[in-house]
């Protein structure tokens, strides 16, 4: 690197030469010459300060790079044979070994997804993963969102510069899953799939909002499937999950991919509707969105909506886990804090 300012150039040369002779190369960064340059800044005419300051900063960065390189060679580690399972001259007592089982842990979200998946698996649902990058067709078009429709705004999606989308719901898998399991309709007569996975929303982080979280999506398609089936299925799942009989209720909602659409609430399993912190003393907990699959969504997956009907739902896993354990801050999940993680064996 060359320096336009003569003073800086001179100091650069002096320091670079000195660096080679130093035992501890980091001392060069504290050299008097360098400090001297910084001290000159306030003495300069205001219009020259910026350029001069930038030059010194460049020099400092160059020196840091050189120090790093030098340190890397000075601290070069002894050669090892990476094909060997063990280093040489290791005593038996100090061989590598696994850490204590007792400190191992699985992530609470993954554990909960296993629990949820297991209940639905026992109810006859296949389980599928979702995607973390998808196209507009699967995220919106195949779910009956007209192009440019304001309903797309409700999803606050992240998009890439090449036009891909970070899915904001696991429904991004509906079209694929319906197609994959379509042959079921001929044999067993129904499609039953659970899709638990990671989704994204362009939302600022706080104790209750994450931009990265987990949903569990369910799809059921068969002959003569109705709203009562949807509600009964969710009620059965929740009663199994909370190991108690729960009440359920709905509120009309709007999703482009279901008709009719609902918001679904269960009676609070933590206070049996007597009122507690978890349900904000309302006795009810709003849990997920659901509805009968829109005929256009079925058609787009090659299923005749005149012959078959179905239902779908999507709910948040993070929320279930937070309520279950009384976790106070959703940000803990992706924090990588062992203090948090090791509590979930």
């Amino acid at each position, binding site marked *: 690197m060359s320096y336009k300012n003569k003073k800086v150039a001179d100091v650069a040369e002096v320091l670079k030469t000195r660096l080679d002779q130093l035992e501890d190369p980091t001392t060069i960064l504290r050299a008097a010459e360098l400090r001297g340059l910084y001290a000159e800044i306030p003495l300069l005419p205001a219009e020259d300060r910026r350029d001069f300051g930038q030059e010194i900063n460049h020099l400092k960065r160059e020196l840091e790079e050189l120090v790093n390189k030098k340190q890397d060679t000075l601290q070069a580690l002894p050669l090892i044979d990476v094909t060997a399972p063990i280093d040489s*001259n290791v005593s038996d007592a100090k061989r590598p070994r696994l850490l204590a089982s007792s400190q191992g842990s699985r992530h609470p979200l993954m554990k909960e997804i296993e629990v949820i998946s297991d209940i639905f698996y026992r109810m006859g649902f296949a389980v599928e993963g979702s995607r973390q990058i998808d196209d507009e067709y699967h995220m919106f078009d195949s779910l009956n969102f007209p192009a440019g429709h304001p309903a797309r705004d409700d999803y606050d999606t992240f998009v890439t510069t090449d036009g891909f989308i970070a899915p904001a719901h696991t429904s991004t898998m509906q079209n694929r899953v319906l197609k994959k399991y379509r042959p079921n309709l001929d044999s067993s007569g129904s499609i039953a799939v659970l899709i638990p996975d990671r989704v994204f929303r362009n939302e600022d982080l706080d104790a209750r909002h994450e931009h990265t979280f987990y949903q569990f999506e369910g799809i059921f398609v068969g002959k003569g499937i109705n709203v009562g089936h949807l509600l009964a299925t969710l009620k059965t799942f929740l009663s199994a999950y909370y190991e108690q009989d729960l009440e359920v209720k709905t509120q009309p909602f709007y999703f482009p991919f279901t008709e009719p659409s609902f918001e679904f609430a269960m009676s609070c399993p933590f206070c049996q509707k007597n009122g507690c912190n978890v349900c904000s003393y309302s006795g009810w907990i709003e849990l997920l969105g659901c509805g009968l699959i829109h005929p256009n969504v079925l058609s787009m997956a090659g299923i005749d909506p005149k012959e078959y009907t179905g239902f779908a739902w999507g709910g948040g896993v993070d929320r279930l886990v937070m309520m279950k354990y009384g976790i106070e801050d959703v940000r803990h999940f992706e924090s990588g804090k062992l203090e948090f993680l090791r509590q979930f064996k």
Partner: protein
Amino acid sequence: MKVSLNWIKEYTSVKVSIDDLVQKIGAQLGEVEEVTDLGKRYEGIVVAKVVTCEKHPNADKLHVCTIDDGGAAKHVTRNAKGHVQVVCGAPNVAVGLHVAWLPPGVTVPSTVEKDPFVLEAREIRGEMSNGMLASASELDISDDHSGIVTLESTIKPGTSFAQAVGFDDYIIDIENKMFTHRPDLFGELGLAREIAGIQHQKFESPNWYRKAVTEQRQGKKLSLKVKNELPALSPRFMAVAVSDVTVKPSPVWLQAYLSRVGIRPINNIVDVTNYIMMLTGQPLHAYDHDRLCEQDGTSAATLVVRHPAKGEELKLLNGKTITPRREAIMIASAKKLVGVGGVIGGADTEVSETTKNIVIECASFDMYSVRKTSMEHGIFTDAVTRFNKGQSSKQNDVVLAHAVEMILDLCPDAGIAGSYHDLKSAKAQDNATKGVTVSSDFVNERLGSKLSLKEMATLLENVEFKIVSVPADKTRLHVIPPFWRTDIEIPEDVVEEIGRLYGYDKLPLLLPTRGIEPAPHNSLLDFQNTLRTLLARAGANEVLTYTFVHGNLFEKVGQDPQNAYQLSNALSPELQYYRQSLAPSLLDKVHSNLKSDIVRGDDNEFVIFEINPVFGKDLKDKDRLPVEDLRLAVVFAADEKTYTRKYEGAAYYMARHYADSLFDFLGISTKYKPATEHHPDQPISRAAIAPFDVDRAAIITSTTDEFLGEIGEFSAPTRRAFKLPPATAGFELDVRQLMRVAAQNPGYTPLSRFPKVVQDITLRVKNEVSYQELHSTVQAALHDLVQDSMMVVVGEPRIYRSEEDTHHKHVTFRLWVSDSTRTLKAEVVNSLLDSVATASESLGAERV
């Protein structure tokens, strides 16, 4: 959307309690966010008549008044006539006025939310004042605090103020999201209809809504020209001029309507347009007619619907000046822009107190275009909220006529200044209502209900659907939705309508039935769960980290940002790219955890792992979608003190031990090749190896050379970037490959009835000979030598290098030799070892 219970009661009756109504709205209309008891806020405020009004003896700007409250207030000092003394500072106070009186003990409504101010009887400059006479601002109606509110003299003194102006109201706020497809529910009229429907009551739209008023007072004629250059984007454009209006604050009753539903009153003309919008969902706009003329320098006002010219600017009502997007629907006079159609009006043609003549516009605009313009310029108004739901263009005429009617009522001198202009596109003129035919079976099958055709018809007719019976068919209905129901297009929409109006909570719950075929396993998900369980059992902690990473992470670990998908709307630079490998995300969690309390203690060490996909632009599937490359990353880290106390050798081998243990659990045999010999072409593979120190890293493959992943210590720049301790190492595996290889697990070997012979063999080789070479040679020799019935297992090696001879190492293999048919003799085993030694001579090895 705020429902004013008093307002909707003008159009339908409500026969249930407020609590039941709220619950019903929740179950059948949409989520109720908040219910406000407005009456409570105005409790105790009384309408009073000013009886006397004298100048305050000790203050220039104050008056001492006595008021007649009809004796309504209790616990208040009265004079001989039963009147109450109040000091008032308003310039407009005068004898005979009917005013809003806040007696002592009442809280000033505008202070209820912040810092409640409770009035009392107290002396003001020596004169007793019992409470106060209130301005619109103090009553929280508008921002006007220039004087006290005056009410119609027809209101009897002593009447509750809340009752007199309709503030004895409940406001039920319903979440807007529910109404994305229901433009009609952005008006109180539509809400009233719906509330009738869910109570199973018949609703009838008022007369003015069914047929436009035709006989209206004529005024001075004004010239108005209207032109629509964008009939596709503005299917209907109506406008009418009204002359000789008197612009002033609205009467209190009108202000109160707006205030109840959250709209600030401005002046009588603007208030009427807002009132009509809140009632019908159709936004209106009023222009100053004379300002339109002035702009063009003519005596005729012109309104044109067009796109903006390049660079054309408009100063908006909110004070901002914009250069509208070229595709925006604009309203212009003959020469200049005057408004953004469906979004916001212009400042220069705004109706103000000096306005004499106005033009009122009632138009329809394309919802997509309005939405785009609103988003692009960041302008969100009540008009946008309504237009972007797709308001029907069929109500413009009745709405405009009703608005004009109200203005003529409020301005006694005003009159229609010409004819109504009505520019309609073919689409807007299309009155053909196709309707939808559904059978009762179709509906009942989807709801799980047993409703009769007649019950279905009644539910729909209650909210003004037309039911045309299908001749000679007693199983089907032909449903013609009213024009405002733009959401009813297919039979399923009718199902929703019937289900909702009937009440979903009345439907029977029944589980679906299915065959007893077993649900299929998902082997990839099962495999991931196996990995999690194994690693957790091995003392490792599973973490989840963000899919998105900072661009400078690539620089730090030496990955190419060009190959990473970049977000165009990232929340922050921290989350701008899709990650290309998993290990760096784990390395990011090392330093903070080593410093944290949990691992501080005797053993400051941990192993963390994550299973998640990574992304590179070079990997696309057959549908041109990015391939999600599923990885498992594992990282070991320990502080220096812990590491040197517990272990010997490089940290690399700690990672190796975890990898080998995992492979062992899975029954996979692997090979390790120095990373220095690994030169991948694919950017995503280069990204995977980048964070590692190639001199201290290896590539893991199956014994049949299927690639599995990378393992090693991390490069100096990576260590620096994440402040890693020297004892950090890890590996990253391709999960799908691992599963494939694990599936080839050979399985079971029958047990031998004969004893095993255990023998060590130590070979001395030059350092340059890698363990892998030596091991392969030994294995190959054994493979050639061992007979069918024999089996040799090579155990964990020991490697030793003496201080005297640092150029060589001693590798000791422990062999377990057995034979399923006989007890092995020492000679057999010895000759086996001899042959192994001989074979290793090819590598310069020497048996010791």
